[in-house]
């Protein structure tokens, strides 16, 4: 079976998305707390705490420097964890996918719906964080409003990456590896809490070539500072291409795993 066969999708994908939305809304009060609290914790500890010992970075206060990174990290985490642990539980423990593919929906549509849902989680969390952070006057408007649509695209990227791991993980515990070996380093080395420019060249190039968060941070930061960097188009292109390729790969890997 081909790894890059283009999946045939229909509007029925939305039914899978809707199922997850319904579950989410049943507990929405709980779901809305983390994206509310998280930026506050980081802003106070790093921005206003640690930040008082840090000189401006390129003429920007440390709090203003990390504010976009917090949004980017949230975009990454929301969809990544939704489409790893969340999807794995639905696939393996709840047999939700099995139940759905006995209906007119195909496995391709189920996986596409899951990935779109993951992206939606990023979107929801990014919007909440945007509101919270804007109260501290750390981001520029109206350019920052573009983060709202962008968060969905960034979410698609990390949801697709996550689904590839979910499709190939022998059990739920092995999902810890991508969390620790991929997500954690990205959290630190993607121009999040210090600029990429302080890194040695090879590491910096690696971050640009292979760490998706680098591109998400770079775009979000351009938007919150209302200062489009030279890389913004390159980053956007990188995200679109990688998202598309990994989306297709994720669907095919899942098909391989579940259709026996």
């Amino acid at each position: 079976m081909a790894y890059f066969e283009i999946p045939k999708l229909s509007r029925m994908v939305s039914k899978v998305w809707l199922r997850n939305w319904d579950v989410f809304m049943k507990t929405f009060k709980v779901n809305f707390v983390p994206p509310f609290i998280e930026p506050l914790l980081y802003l106070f500890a790093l921005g206003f705490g640690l930040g008082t010992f840090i000189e401006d970075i390129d003429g920007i206060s440390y709090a203003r420097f990390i504010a976009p990174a917090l949004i980017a990290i949230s975009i990454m985490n929301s969809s990544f964890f939704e489409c790893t642990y969340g999807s794995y539980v639905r696939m393996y423990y709840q047999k939700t996918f099995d139940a759905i593919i006995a209906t007119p929906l195909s496995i391709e549509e189920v996986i596409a719906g899951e990935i779109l849902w993951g992206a939606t989680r990023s979107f929801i969390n990014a919007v909440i964080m945007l509101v919270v952070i804007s109260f501290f006057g750390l981001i520029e408007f109206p350019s920052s409003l573009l983060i709202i649509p962008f968060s969905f695209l960034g979410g698609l990227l990390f949801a697709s990456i996550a689904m590839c791991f979910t499709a190939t993980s022998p059990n739920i515990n092995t999902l810890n590896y991508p969390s620790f070996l991929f997500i954690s380093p990205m959290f630190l080395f993607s121009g999040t809490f210090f600029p990429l420019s302080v890194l040695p060249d090879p590491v910096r190039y690696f971050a640009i070539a292979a760490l998706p968060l680098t591109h998400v941070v770079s775009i979000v930061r351009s938007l919150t500072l209302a200062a489009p960097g030279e890389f913004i188009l390159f980053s956007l292109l990188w995200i679109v291409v990688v998202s598309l390729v990994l989306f297709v790969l994720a669907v095919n890997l899942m098909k391989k795993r579940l259709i026996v």
Partner: protein
Amino acid sequence: MVVVEVPVIEAHGLRKQYGDFVAVDDVSFSVNEGEVFGFLGPNGAGKTTLMKMIQCVSPKTGGKLEVFGMDVDTHPREIKKLMGVVPQDSNLDPDFSVYANLMVYSRYFNIPHADAKAMTEELLDFVQLKEKKDTIIEYLSGGMKRRLVLARGLINKPRLIILDEPTIGLDPQARHLIWDKLKSLRAQGITVVLTTHYLDEASQLCDRLVIMNQSKILVEGKPDDLIKKYIGTDIVEVEENPAAIKCLEREGTKYEVVRGMIQIYTNHPREMTAALLSNCDLGKITARSATLEDVFLKLTGRKLRE
């Protein structure tokens, strides 16, 4: 106009391999509109694998398989639209209540909301779960879960429903409740296909059935016909002992020794028992009706449930 009767399911030389392992081997059968068709066989016979191919969720390795006259490989969506499914593992959605399970499922069939609501109410009534409407799946008993899965399988008003071990693990009362529901589906003209390793279930419910063992179909027919053909109506049983065998040989009575029991297949149990009692000294002797289990035992030398 010429009406050609198309079987609801038609399989010819159907095969399924998992790697090198052949799970379904050159199987042929056809299921007619409106009948209850059973697949009886022990665990591992290949029943679930076969059902999954019919449900278009597991691709066949070879052979022909058509449902409603459509090929499972090329028309899965059309077939699945017309079919209801009760899988072996009740994969209900634990994130939802009883009611929401049916409503969410109805969306996968694109059933308009108002119709789905009416259908859900009707089905909850049918499977006697109205009072449990708002209960979370976790708190349902095994029998209730099975009934809810049955209701879920009916949400799209299917012409064909496939049930994989519909009563597995249920107590007798819960099983009979399911049987009643299946009988009433049959009365509505819905084609019912079921698998089971309970012979009473097979003989009670099925108009026709096949007996499967080790990936193959052994025989096909009406339950009573199969029993008559392979056994006779009754079985007279005696515990195995040399004296009894000697006597039977002398009398020229045909018998088989199965698992420590001498079995005499007959259509006239009274006469046979009387004759044996007067001619041979057999000790304890019992006569009983023959069952599908006896057919299976005769054909394979194994019991259905080891």
